[in-house]
């Protein structure tokens, strides 16, 4: 993977030193909170309900074992022995104390990590397909482009004070696992008629208060034009984007207000100005970065152990069926380690689990680890003969749950258990759905299903693109949960539709059960997933299941 250059290292170190001075000045009273707040946010430090929270970037979800062990060390030394992986491929520590944060940032810098641009109105951590560099369906590894974007956007003087935060997602595969259509810029690799690789450029997607699926402004952008084109998009947005109203400041509103055709025209015009200014240094840099993402030396060995275990052990078989994805080398598999053991907090890993994952990545995974926006951990390159031993080791640490892509593999934001912006809790709802359907033994019967939960309208839990989305709200001083159905974060992206009035905290799990029992009754067979069934039958049967017996519930 990409290692920091001396330049990166010096930059991060200087930022740590600056922040150390800022914290000292805050503590001795020379800085007020109003002065300090933007400075701490620039370093990923938030103040939440019960404590500070430090958000650390994991660029394009790629992390090595040494870094993972350092996160475990930080969790033990300065936090409460765990970390929370987020939907933006970041990790959050929920309990740091202010005077310790400069030391934590120093410990991160020791392993080439930082919290820069994890907050504020700048280009945030660039997210990528978590199967990047391994997936069978991939055209090209998108991470060199993501790294190029990271370097270009870090401290970019023109883009530090954008109208609002700016999120870029990139995938090198036509099957979109990076939710590119719900980002400010989504880059989806495609081939043109001549077989060349390029990007479909999608602009103005986003969730939150006004969810929108992005519009394609370029069907095919040659890869060599990436930086000037992205810079053109940012430049147009920086000029047009509204600074008068925070709720209308994201580029999705700019696109909406300007019109898709007009914005595409403006981007192309700006691109025409910028393109000649890129003299090839970016391409030289890209070539250099590519070296850092060379695939590992794949082994060539029999895979019988995997087949034998699959035939002999139903527990292993269930795990292999859900948690493995096709690798482009068919002796290999991509392993998703579920951080969603039934009843666990989605996305949380203890320091012991982090260390075990680091060890297993070294033993079985060519030392590569990825974090997914779905809040799981990926070992992208595992030889199939090593899978049984890997599974056994994971199972001993509550990491072997066979539920990836199933009902208990829930995305849930921190919600009102941590987040100061929340209007309701999300974690306990996720925990209860997972344990409830586990107890009913319906999980595997229901099959592929994505439930996504957010604790407020900001939609960090991506509820709009959940097959079943749950949004926690405050209705007259009581937690209330609104359900959406039919959302989809893939290349066929769609925003879910509201079912109707929301449900109280103790009604939400039974409501989800009613939806899924209706699905099981009406599906044409186990091959018809929930999403397929939804697309066939629409809202009516689910609405009837939810609200049919009107006397049983109060509309909220």
């Amino acid at each position: 993977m990409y290692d920091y250059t001396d330049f990166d290292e010096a930059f991060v170190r200087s930022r740590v030193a600056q922040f150390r001075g800022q914290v000292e000045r805050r503590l001795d009273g020379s800085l007020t909170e109003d002065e300090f707040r933007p400075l701490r946010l620039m370093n990923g430090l938030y103040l939440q309900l019960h404590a500070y929270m430090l958000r650390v970037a994991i660029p394009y979800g790629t992390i090595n074992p040494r870094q993972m062990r350092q996160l475990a060390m930080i969790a033990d030394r300065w936090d409460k022995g765990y970390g929370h992986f987020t939907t933006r491929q970041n990790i959050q520590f929920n309990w740091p104390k202010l005077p310790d944060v400069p030391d934590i940032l120093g410990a991160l810098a020791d392993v080439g990590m930082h919290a820069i641009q994890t907050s504020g109105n700048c280009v945030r951590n660039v997210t990528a397909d978590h199967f990047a560099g391994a997936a069978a369906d991939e055209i090209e590894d998108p991470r060199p482009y993501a790294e190029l974007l990271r370097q270009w956007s870090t401290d970019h003087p023109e883009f530090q004070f954008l109208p609002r935060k700016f999120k870029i997602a990139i995938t090198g595969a036509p099957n979109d696992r990076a939710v590119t259509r719900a980002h400010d810029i989504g880059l989806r690799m495609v081939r043109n008629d001549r077989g060349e690789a390029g990007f479909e450029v999608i602009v103005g997607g986003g969730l939150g208060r006004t969810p929108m699926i992005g519009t394609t402004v370029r069907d095919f952008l040659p890869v060599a034009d990436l930086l000037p084109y992205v810079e053109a998009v940012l430049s147009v947005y920086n000029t047009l984007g509204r600074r008068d109203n925070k709720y209308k400041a994201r580029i999705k509103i700019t696109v909406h207000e300007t019109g898709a055709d007009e914005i595409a025209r403006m981007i192309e015009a700006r691109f025409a100005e910028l393109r000649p200014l890129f003299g090839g240094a970016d391409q030289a840099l890209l070539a250099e970065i590519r070296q850092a993402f060379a695939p590992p030396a794949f082994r060539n060995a029999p895979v019988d152990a995997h087949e034998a275990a699959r035939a002999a052990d139903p527990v292993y078989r269930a795990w292999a069926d859900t948690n493995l994805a096709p690798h482009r080398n068919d002796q290999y598999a991509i392993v998703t380690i579920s951080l969603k053991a039934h009843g666990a907090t989605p996305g949380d890993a203890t320091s012991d689990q982090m260390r075990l994952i680091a060890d297993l990545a070294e033993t079985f995974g060519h030392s590569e680890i990825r974090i997914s926006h779905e809040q799981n951990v990926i070992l992208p390159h595992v030889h199939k003969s090593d899978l049984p031993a890997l599974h056994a080791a994971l199972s001993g640490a509550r990491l072997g749950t066979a539920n990836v892509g199933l009902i208990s593999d829930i995305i849930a934001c921190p919600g009102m258990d941590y987040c100061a912006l929340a209007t309701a809790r999300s974690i306990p709802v996720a925990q209860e759905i997972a344990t409830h359907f586990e107890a009913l033994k319906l999980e595997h019967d229901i099959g592929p299903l994505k439930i996504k939960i957010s604790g407020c309208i900001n939609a960090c839990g991506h509820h709009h693109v959940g097959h079943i989305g749950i949004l926690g709200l405050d209705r007259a001083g009581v937690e209330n949960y609104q359900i959406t159905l039919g959302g989809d974060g893939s290349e066929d992206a769609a925003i879910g539709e509201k079912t109707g009035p929301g449900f109280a905290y103790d009604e939400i799990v039974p409501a989800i059960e009613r939806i899924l029992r209706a699905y099981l009754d009406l599906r044409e067979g186990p091959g018809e997933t929930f999403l397929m069934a939804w697309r066939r039958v629409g809202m009516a049967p689910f609405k009837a299941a939810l609200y049919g017996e009107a006397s049983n519930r109060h509309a909220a």
Partner: protein
Amino acid sequence: MSRFTPKVVTANRLIEGDAVYLCADDRWSVHHHEAELIEDEAHAQMRLLHANAQRGVVVGAYLADARPGPNGPEPVHFRERFRTVGPSNYPHGKQADQAHV
């Protein structure tokens, strides 16, 4: 004329970041029930000014609705109730830091 809903002054501590409540004797307590229950609007504003002046101790002071209870003031809104107990997924925060709430 609507009656003034009683309030407590609450904030987060600058160093630890945890939720605290302003007591009548000007201490900051981690226990909601030790807070001063303020029943008068003008007094509430005075106490908030007092809290905001303590820039080296607390951050983000505000007035939160409260009501009298057998052991002292109790939170009204669920958000404030969660702040008095800590997260629901782990026994961290106030649950770990104190024997009882």
